[in-house]
C-alpha cells in the first residue's frame, strides 16, 4: 500500500468507527464482497449503529432447488436425454430435492466440471456422440460468456450443445429488497458490465447505494461514503469504483446478452418469483434451450424445510440463527446453498468463525 492509500484508508476507517447516529443498514449483494468483508474482518470495525447485511449476491445461492432437479432429470431420467452436464464446480454440491449433482455422479450421471462456459462448447465439439448441457447460472457478469459459448457452438455447427438457464439480473432484486436496507453496496463486477444507469435510475425511486471495488481501501471508502450520505436524508448514488466501472458499462457484453437472451420471470431461492428478473434464450435459439429441446417435465423442487437460506438471503436472519447451521449443515456436509458456495453467507460465517 502506498502512503497515500494508507492515509485514505485511515480516513475512511475513522469516519466509520466514529459514527454515532440513526441506524444505517447497508446491504452487499455480491458474493465476492461478502467474502472479502469477512476476510478483512471488516464487520469488527463497525459501530453498533451500522449494520452490514449480506443480500442475494451469490448466483449459486439464489439458484432454486427446481433447477438442480431439472439438471438431474437431464442427466439421469430414463425418459430424458441422459445428457453430459457441464457445470461450474460450485454447483455440483448444491442439494436438489432428493440429490445433488455430486451424488448423481455416483449413480452414473456424467458431470463435467468446467472453468468457463466456452470449455463446455469445446467439450460438445470434441464429443459429438454426447448430448451436452451447460448449466448457465450467474448474473450479468457471467451471462456474456454463456452467450459466447452458444456463439462458439453455432460456429462449430454443434447440434449436441444446449443451455439450461437460470440466469438472473439484479435490478428487480434491488427494488424488491429496498425496504431491508438504507443503502446498497452495489456489485463492482456486475456494474462493470451494466454501467451506472440502473443505480442512477434507482435514486429517482428513493433507493440509495454506491458501487464498490474489492480491496480493503475500496470497500472502506464505499462504506464511508454511505455513512456520510445516509444521514443527509437524500437518495444518492456514487460510483466508488471508477477505475473499473464506467457509466456505459460494457456495451459489447450487453449487446451480446441482448442478442441471445430476453427477460423472463424467474424464481430466486428464498425470494420467490420476481417479474423480469431472469434471462432465458430468445425463441430464435430454442434449439439451444435444454428446457424446450428435451421437454423437461414441470418439476416442483423443495429445499430442506428446516433450512433458512431464503431468509438469510433477504437479511431477515443471520446464519447462526438457523437451526441447521454448524450442526448438520457444515462446509463438509452442506444442506443449504448458502453453505455450498464459497461466496455464500453461511460459508463465510462458518469459515471465519464469526458465530
Amino acid at each position, binding site marked *: *500500500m502506498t502512503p497515500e492509500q494508507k492515509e485514505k*484508508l485511515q480516513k475512511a*476507517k475513522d469516519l466509520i468507527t466514529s459514527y454515532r447516529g440513526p441506524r444505517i443498514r447497508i446491504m452487499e449483494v455480491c458474493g*465476492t464482497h461478502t*467474502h472479502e468483508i*469477512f*476476510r*478483512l*474482518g*471488516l464487520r*469488527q*470495525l463497525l459501530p453498533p449503529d451500522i449494520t452490514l447485511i449480506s443480500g442475494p449476491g451469490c448466483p449459486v445461492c439464489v439458484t432454486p432447488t427446481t433447477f438442480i432437479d431439472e439438471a438431474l432429470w437431464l442427466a439421469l431420467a430414463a425418459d430424458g436425454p441422459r445428457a453430459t452436464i457441464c457445470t461450474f*464446480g460450485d454447483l455440483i454440491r448444491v442439494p436438489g430435492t432428493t440429490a445433488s449433482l455430486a451424488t448423481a455422479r455416483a449413480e452414473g450421471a456424467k458431470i463435467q*466440471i468446467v*472453468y*468457463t462456459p466456452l*470449455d463446455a462448447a469445446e467439450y460438445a465439439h470434441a464429443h459429438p456422440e454426447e448430448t451436452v448441457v451447460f448449466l448457465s447460472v450467474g448474473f450479468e457478469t457471467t451471462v456474456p460468456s454463456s452467450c459466447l459459448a452458444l456463439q462458439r457452438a453455432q460456429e462449430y455447427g454443434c447440434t449436441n450443445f444446449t443451455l439450461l438457464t437460470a440466469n438472473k439480473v439484479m435490478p428487480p432484486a434491488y427494488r424488491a429488497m429496498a425496504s431491508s436496507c438504507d443503502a446498497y453496496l452495489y456489485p463492482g463486477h456486475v456494474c462493470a458490465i451494466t454501467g451506472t444507469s440502473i443505480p442512477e435510475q434507482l435514486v429517482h425511486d428513493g433507493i440509495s447505494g454506491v458501487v464498490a471495488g*474489492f480491496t*480493503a481501501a475500496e470497500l*472502506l471508502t464505499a462504506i464511508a461514503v454511505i455513512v456520510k450520505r445516509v444521514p443527509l436524508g437524500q437518495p444518492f448514488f456514487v460510483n466508488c469504483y471508477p477505475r473499473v466501472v464506467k457509466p456505459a458499462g460494457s456495451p459489447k457484453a450487453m449487446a451480446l446478452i441482448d442478442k441471445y437472451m430476453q427477460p423472463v420471470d424467474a424464481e430466486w431461492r428464498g425470494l420467490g418469483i420476481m417479474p423480469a428478473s431472469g434471462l432465458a434464450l430468445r425463441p430464435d435459439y430454442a434449439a439451444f434451450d435444454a428446457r424446450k429441446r428435451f421437454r423437461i417435465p414441470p418439476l416442483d423442487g423443495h429445499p430442506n424445510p428446516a433450512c433458512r437460506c431464503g431468509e438469510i438471503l433477504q437479511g431477515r436472519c443471520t446464519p447462526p440463527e438457523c437451526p441447521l447451521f454448524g450442526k448438520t449443515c457444515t*462446509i*463438509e456436509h452442506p444442506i443449504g446453498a448458502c453453505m455450498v458456495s*464459497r*461466496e455464500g453467507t453461511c460459508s463465510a460465517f462458518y*469459515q*471465519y*468463525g464469526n458465530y
Partner: protein
Amino acid sequence: MLNDNEKVTLAHGAGGKKTSELIHDIFQKHLGNRYFTADDAAVLELDSRHIAVTTDGFIVSPWQFPGGNIGELCICGTVNDLSCMGARPKYLTCAFQIEEGTPLRDLELIASSMAETAAAAGVHIVAGDTKVAGKGQVDHCFITTTGIGELQPGLCPSGSRAAAGDAVIVTGDVGRHGCAILLARGDYGIDAAVTSDAAPLWSIVEPLTKIAAPEDLHTMRDATRGGVGTVLYEIAGESGVGIELNSAAIPVDPAVRGTCDMLGLEPLYLACEGRLVIFTPAERADEVLAVIRQTEQGRGAARIGTVVSDHPGKVTINTVLGTQTILPAPGGELLPRIC
C-alpha cells in the same frame, strides 16, 4: 541408440533387451554414479548411526511447468522432507511408472533434471525401478522416490515442539508452485509470469545446524501440497497452540497475488515446493532469519507470525484494517492434483 521420435512401449517394461536399453541409454546415462548398481540392491555407507527415511509419490499434471518438471520435483520433495528432520540427504531410490506411448525424449529430460537437482542437493540416486503401464493407466509418468538422510547432532525439530512465543518464519514467498501449475494447465485463460519455487532446501538447513543453539529450531516443515496454511494448521494441532499471522508480512509474488485475487484463491493454501516453515523462539528469530537470508533459496525469508497460547489449534490473521480474522481451515476444495 535412442531414436529421437521413439516412444515407450510395453516391451520397454518387459525386462528384456528393450528394458536394458531404456535403463542404459537414459537412466544409467544421466543418473549413474559409483553406487548405482546393476545388482539387486545398492550397498551404501553412512557415517551416522541415526538415519531418517522417507518416501513420496509424484503424479503432477502437467509434467513440466514454468520453473521445473516432475524430475526436479521428485528429488526436491523427498530431500526436503529429510532436511526438515535435520537429516542431511544422502541417497535416493526412484521407481517409475511410465505410460505406454510416452516419448523417450520426455524421459530423458526428466532424468537429466533429476540428475541436475540431485547434484545440487548433494544426494546420490542409488537404485531404481521401471514399470510400463498401458495407455491411460497412468498419466505420462509417475515417480516415487525414497530418501535416506543422516541426522545431524543437535537438531531435533518436531511438529509437536512449537511453543507460545515462537516466531513463525517462511523461507520465501508463498504459493508459487501451486500457482504456476494452475496457470500451466491453461484452464483459466490467464497469462502471468509465475515460475515454480521448486528447489532442494538442505542448503538452507545446513547452515542452521551451525547456529549457537540448533535445538531451538523447534519445528521445520516444508510446505508442499496444501501450502503454508495447511502446515500452520497441522502444527497448531500437533503442538496444541494458536498461531497469529501478520497479513502484511506474508511474502507473496505480485503475479501470484493477482492470479489469486482473480480466482478467489488464498495464496497460503497454494502449494510450494521450495519453502520451509520454521518455528523458533522469538529471541532467536533475527539470528535464524539472517542465516536463512544468506542462502540462495532463502533470500526472501520473512517472519510472518507468532505462536500464542490462545485459541489452540487455530490460525488467525491480523488484517490490514487492524482487525483479526481466522484463516479458514484447509477444506476439501476440489483443486486438481499438483504435486
